């Protein structure tokens, strides 16, 4: 194991997570999920993956395989706020690509997502932009989730307002699920 790696989740915490899931079906998935959750930046950092591999005796290549299969897992630090733009068919026809393009006011965002990255996080770690295949809220398209709250029939004006509010640290009171 590489000893110079930054520690994001204490091994004691990982030990607890492993102990509480020992022997349960889907042990690896749950452990990975909870370790990601315990990470301040909500991602699976190398040190944690290597510790899990060692403790659960699951090869690193397999942990990486699982982590890259499920879009739920992040391999990069996530921002304090997350904006998820739905890219399902219904949202697409109602203009979700435009919403994603609107977010290109964040420098580097468009390049990252166009090159196939699954998410983009601003340098100051304040905002992460992701896409998802479908939220199952097609009647309300286009749909955007901001910090797990779903916003519907979103317009360019609204998404930029949300972004500004997040950047100013405000709670958004103006947009509600309609």
């Amino acid at each position, binding site marked *: 194991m590489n000893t110079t790696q930054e520690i994001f989740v204490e091994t004691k915490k990982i030990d607890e997570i492993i102990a509480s899931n020992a022997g349960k079906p889907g042990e690896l998935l749950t452990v990975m999920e909870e370790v990601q959750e315990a990470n301040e930046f909500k991602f699976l950092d190398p040190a944690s*993956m290597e510790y899990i591999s060692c403790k659960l005796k699951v090869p690193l290549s397999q942990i990486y*395989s699982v982590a890259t*299969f499920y879009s739920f897992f992040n391999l990069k630090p996530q921002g304090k706020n997350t904006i998820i733009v739905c890219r399902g068919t219904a949202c697409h026809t109602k203009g979700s690509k435009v919403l994603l393009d609107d977010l290109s006011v964040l420098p580097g965002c468009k390049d990252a997502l166009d090159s196939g990255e699954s998410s983009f996080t601003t340098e100051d770690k304040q905002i992460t932009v992701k896409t998802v295949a479908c939220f199952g809220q097609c009647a309300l398209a286009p749909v955007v989730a901001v910090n797990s709250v779903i916003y519907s029939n979103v317009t360019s004006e609204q998404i930029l307002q949300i972004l500004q509010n997040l950047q100013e640290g405000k709670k958004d009171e103006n947009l509600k699920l309609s």
Partner: protein
Amino acid sequence: MEKKITITVNGREYKVSAGKTILESCKEIGIEIPSLCYLKDVSHNASCGICVVEVKGARTLVRSCVTQASEGMVVKTNSPSIDEARKTNLELILANHPKDCLICERNGNCELQDLTATLGIKEASYGKTKPIEPIDDTSLSLVRNPEKCILCGRCIAVCAEVQTVHAIDFAGRGLRTKVSTYQDKGLGNVACTYCGQCALVCPTAAISEKDESRTVFNDIYDDQKYVVVQTAPAIRVGIGEAMGMEEGALVTGKMVAGLRKLGFDKVFDTQFTADLTIMEEGFELIHRIKNNGTLPMITSCSPGWIKFIEHFFPKSLDHLSTCKSPQQMFGAVAKTYYAEKLNIDPRKMVVVSIMPCTAKKFECKRPEMNSAFGYWKNKLGLTDKDNFFDVDYVLTTRELARMFKQSGIDFRNLDEEEFDLPLGISTGAGAIFAATGGVMEAAVRTAYEVITGKPLPSIDLKVVRGFEGIKEAELDLDGTKIKVAVAHTLKNARTLLEQIEEGKSPYAFIEVMTCPGGCLGGGGQAIPTTWEIREKRAASIYREDSLKPIRKSHDNPAIKEIYQDFLKEPLGHKSHELLHTEYTERGVY
């Protein structure tokens, strides 16, 4: 008696062995079902959809590589819907595969190319859909080109199940699915042993050896350089196949003649240093037994195995023999003993190895493998920037075949020639290093006579021959009984190491070979390498042994001479300087 079942294939009834898949049963009765991802004994993840057949009563086409044949089953292996499904599935695979066959190293030896011809695909109907992933050339041994990968999963299966190394796995999902290492670090930066079994089973050129044949040609053409070549025991039963001869063809003399035609200044035999290894390792074993040293002692000839134990069992490194592999002993001896004999500057000497092995490419560049430089440093007043390695290049069987072909050598019709002296003289004991159990047998031939002072009752130690995963034997060395074991594949090596770490190993001496069947089934050998082919290569190796006038390493006159004139004694000062080594703790990452 073997249980039989009756199945109907293409309207005719057949009796076939029970418990087999439809694909195997059909093969048994002479009906070949085309397949791609399936590989006997290695991979059956049914991902390609080429081997589909119709089974009466089944809703859809079934994949014959994973479906068991059962009593009364009615199977069709050809029909319009089968043909269409096979073609469509193959065309979908071809959509993302480059069509640059003419300039591909597997041109003419590619399962995808063959299948495309077999199924009569005439046009590329679908366009590319996948992003291009970068080439992984991080290791000294292997190159991965993901663009040529068809995601059959054979490499992953062989790495996980045969070798228990798990260096690679599928990563990503959907169109972004790829075979990759942990964090896409590349094979050079993870716990990969470089055994090359992945390259051996790859149906395309998605994983292959790092080709150095061009550099070797350049050195041969350079008049200032004195280029000597050594050939591993397993090459003489592999290169014939790679040159289009029959499986397991024993072609020692033709190989020597071909190498001379390529322009090597001297053609030598790694079997000479295999004999030298037996002297050093045999004496090391005797020393350990007599002096309560660390036992069991484990052989150290196989560099994939060395990297495996360094990664996965670093606590057990003391069990490894300190002997270098025959390849490395050769380099060290060539650039000291032989250079001195010829009075040539060791810096002008280039040592090329022909090996059945991709891990050897890494081994020769291990920083400690520069003993000849250490030997000459003071004598010639060299500084660290003059550093040179004992072995300069390692070429696999496949690379040598490429060189022969490029040089217009009519290999099949070459007249046989003899190795050069003195580093080309070897015994039957050196030859059998190519087969699993061979090092053990060779060591016993010498150790028995050294310990007991009596001639060996029977020279053939049949109990350690054959392809059983772990073989064991008890030897009576004039009253001292020792147990020995022989393992091939890293999975079996792991079993023996776990036993050692639990303190339950009953053995004094263990031989480990990385690849299935030993070096004759090595990752650098001719493609294809199947168990049937390994059997034939092994038979040829034991024939080579039995044809040798001298069959025990300590009786090799060239070995006697090198001890008399240069090394003085096994485990002596010079041996330690040139022929022994140390290991590195690596851990898993």
